[in-house]
């Protein structure tokens, strides 16, 4: 029963990683760049929700929607001003820029909101679910996180695979030139990807801070790195891979904390990544390119 409870917590944390990892993997798939500022968008989103609820008294759901819109805009602005001018530049230049944007966001947050940790009030009001005569307690946050993540993942899969715009995204991620010949506006598609990824980051931020309620300018950094790990773990560029990688990583982290060592949990998570990359360099669901030419 104890194990089941850890497992559920792991899935819950993992779903948050998965949502963040989706942002990394989609941007990588389309723009072929690692957006290291993605984690900090989570932090900005969380602060906006925090300010909305605690300082302005806006209902949580409205605050979340405002935060999603703001993060979407933030994502588009970052792409437009930091990354778009570098299209065609070496990937190292883009990577360093992304790290720069990450520090910029963290320091802006420090400037606006100060360094003292804010204690985030959970937006979840659902009572915990007690199963098996109270032996298994699933918190409201966990339920909301798992449900929300599932809905987002299914929605995203449907969007990408079933809609015209989603298919255009897949086309751009495979061959920008050929996509342009189909009449697809590549710049628009890249901006859209950043927009979607950032909106997801806002949601992830809220879910994360509801479960782990300390909010400070570096809050997004660690989950960001872990979600990036999850994306690589699952196979960067692959949407199902990011989902699988995220959930597995969350489970590994929680189980390590529970059964091995709290301090070593993060080390174990990253060690798993190293092992996976040694055995399967493309990640679990990484694209095998089997083209006949």
């Amino acid at each position, binding site marked *: 029963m104890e194990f089941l409870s850890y497992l559920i917590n792991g899935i819950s944390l993992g779903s948050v990683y998965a949502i963040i990892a989706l942002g990394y993997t989609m941007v990588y798939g389309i723009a072929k760049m690692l957006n290291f500022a993605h984690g900090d968008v989570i932090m900005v989103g969380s602060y906006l929700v925090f300010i909305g609820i605690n300082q302005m008294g806006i209902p949580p759901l409205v605050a979340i929607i405002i935060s999603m819109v703001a993060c979407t805009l933030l994502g588009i602005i970052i792409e437009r001003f930091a990354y778009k001018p570098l299209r065609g530049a070496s990937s190292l230049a883009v990577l360093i820029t992304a790290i720069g944007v990450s520090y910029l966001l963290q320091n802006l947050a420090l400037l606006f909101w100060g360094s003292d940790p804010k204690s985030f009030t959970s937006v979840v009001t659902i009572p915990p679910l007690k199963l098996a005569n109270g032996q298994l307690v699933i918190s409201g946050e966990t339920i909301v996180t798992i449900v929300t993540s599932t809905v987002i993942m299914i929605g995203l899969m449907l969007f990408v695979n079933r809609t015209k715009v989603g298919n*255009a995204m*897949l*086309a751009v991620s*495979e061959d920008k030139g050929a*996509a*342009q*010949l*189909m*009449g697809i506006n590549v710049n628009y598609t890249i901006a859209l990807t950043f927009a979607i990824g950032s909106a997801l980051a806002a949601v992830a931020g809220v879910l994360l801070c509801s479960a782990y309620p300390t909010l400070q300018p570096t809050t997004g950094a660690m989950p960001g790195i872990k979600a990036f790990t999850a994306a690589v773990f699952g196979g960067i560029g692959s949407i199902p891979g990011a989902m699988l990688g995220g959930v597995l990583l969350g489970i590994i982290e929680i189980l390590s904390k529970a059964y091995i060592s709290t301090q070593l949990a993060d080390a174990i998570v990253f060690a798993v990544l190293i092992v996976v990359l040694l055995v399967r360099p493309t990640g679990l669901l990484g694209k095998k390119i089997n083209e006949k030419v």
Partner: protein
Amino acid sequence: MGEMLQVKNLNVFYGSIHAIKDISFHVNEGEIVTLIGANGAGKTTTMHTISGLLKPKTGEVSFLGNPITQMEAHKIIRLGLSQVPEGRRVFSHLTVQENLTLGAYTRKDGSAAVANDLERIFERLPRLKERRKQQAGTLSGGEQQMLAIGRALMCKPKMLLLDEPSMGLSPLLVKEIFKIIQDVNQEGVTILLVEQNAKMALEIADRAYVLETGTIKMEGPADELANNIEIRKAYLGC
């Protein structure tokens, strides 16, 4: 039969390499025109400059009277100029049907019309129909070429640019592909065909230009060029 595509004094550079040197040519409505030349002559560069993937340093390209030299590729196709790129470049992780549907990306006349044209493409290219749910990357070279042509036709182009459709295909398949090109032309689509396979290209073309290291060396009616002694030596191997 007016001029559909006009290329005037085009110069294209890759960094400091002068790939296309001041070439001019045109394609009239309804024609099949071929641009033949060896590897590295600048054929694909010319194609990419017309379709907007590359920008020339100087010179002009106009299509149906519209200057398209500085237009972005995704807008040029909306004028009715569609390209089948070299090496087919089908979206290998998408299915055959998804590839074809993406070909209709620019169309605004409703999904029923697109579905209708999809069926027409499948009638023309029955092998694609059998494989409509298959990932494009799993198709054979010939099938991929057919898919690339079908995809380019899905936007209902007025003119089709074909870049080396015979590349890597068996003689039998090349014949089949060229027959398709002729059929498409007969239905009113103007064709600009870039080929290394000069023999086949000259057989179906009305006019031809010979491209050599970035300049046009010769031009004329295709049958005349096919009988030209220099061409026969250099490109037809006889």
